[in-house]
């Protein structure tokens, strides 16, 4: 049984690999009410910009035993970080790992600043991630899956298509097959992460894509993976690839 299923998945995997992005690609904000879209587009009133401002200050603040700031190596983020977020998650040859933006910031924190890593979902890490991602606002996602990323990518695709939780739903059942339909007061989105980190009114603050993914796990009543776990990272990579070509809208605003 399992072998037949694997065979089928293998066959489907080759044929449908490229068909696994919804057409036309629609950003998360397009499924939000007009007031939320207006708020996201307003560079001042967008509440997530409070964290972007904090990130801007952290960028130039020396940290750790090396007493180095991000700017000491990278210079002005407006220039050096432009377009960077479009290429994440990516494979980092030096550490031999797949890293999302948060992971890369923490590698810098530990190896360059000689400081303890910033805690996942803490305000400083969210602020720096939002500040870096904001520099790529409007630029299309361009994640390239090479041999180093292949295993993580395949794991992400598997998770995306795998039923889970008491509701026994896979990501694709909502975000691939039923996007645009109504789910109580929400319109089901295509499930792209291009707006994250995003301010979510439900959270009353900004949150990472992994927090949003955990909320989906919770929604289908499945066990939530830990922050920074390989599962969430693999999903992030698969989602980024699936959204290739979609403009980054970080920091987004969501209900």
């Amino acid at each position, binding site marked *: 049984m399992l072998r037949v299923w694997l065979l089928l998945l293998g066959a489907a995997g080759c044929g449908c690999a490229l068909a696994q992005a919804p057409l036309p690609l629609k950003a998360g904000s397009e499924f939000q009410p007009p007031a939320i879209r207006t708020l996201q587009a307003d560079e*001042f*009133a967008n*509440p997530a*910009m*409070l*964290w972007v*401002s*904090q990130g801007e*200050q*952290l960028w130039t603040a020396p940290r750790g035993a090396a007493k180095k700031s991000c700017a000491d190596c990278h210079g002005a983020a407006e220039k050096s970080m432009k377009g960077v977020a479009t290429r994440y998650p990516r494979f980092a040859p030096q550490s031999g790992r797949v890293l999302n933006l948060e992971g890369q910031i923490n590698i810098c924190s530990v190896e360059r600043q000689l400081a303890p890593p910033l805690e996942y979902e803490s305000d400083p890490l969210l602020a720096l991630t939002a500040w870096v991602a904001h520099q790529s606002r409007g630029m299309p996602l361009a994640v390239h899956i090479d041999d180093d990323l292949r295993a993580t990518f395949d794991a992400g695709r598997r998770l995306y298509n795998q039923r889970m939780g008491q509701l026994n739903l896979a990501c694709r059942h909502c975000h691939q097959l039923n996007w645009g339909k109504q789910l109580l007061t929400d319109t089901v989105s295509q499930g792209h992460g291009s707006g994250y980190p995003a301010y979510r009114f439900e959270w*009353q*603050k900004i949150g990472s894509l992994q927090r949003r993914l955990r909320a989906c796990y919770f929604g289908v009543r499945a066990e939530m993976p830990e922050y920074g776990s390989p599962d969430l990272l693999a999903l992030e990579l698969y989602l980024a690839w699936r959204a290739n070509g979609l403009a980054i809208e970080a920091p987004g605003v969501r209900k």
Partner: protein
Amino acid sequence: MANARLSVQDKATRGEVVPVRLAILHAMETGFRRDIDGRAITRNVIRFVACRYAGREVWRADLSSGISANPYFEFFFRADMSGELELTWEDDSMEKGLIRARIEVAG
């Protein structure tokens, strides 16, 4: 680390009505919520936000638990002389906030 954003033009003509926009990063904890162990979470909301311009108060807001987290304000004042715009606020834990901008008035 600054926890607010202020947007106001830096130049104005005498008598011009100038818009001010202010966003404050604050949880605005209502005091009605309980934590995961059932203990009440202490209320901590911003009590007031005041705006002084060239030494006198031109705008003030008294806030309560009905105001959302990370509140956003927009108001107007008439610029009749050059001076410092100074916004201050204070929450239930007596933490104070301050953000300033200078406005040059010509004519």
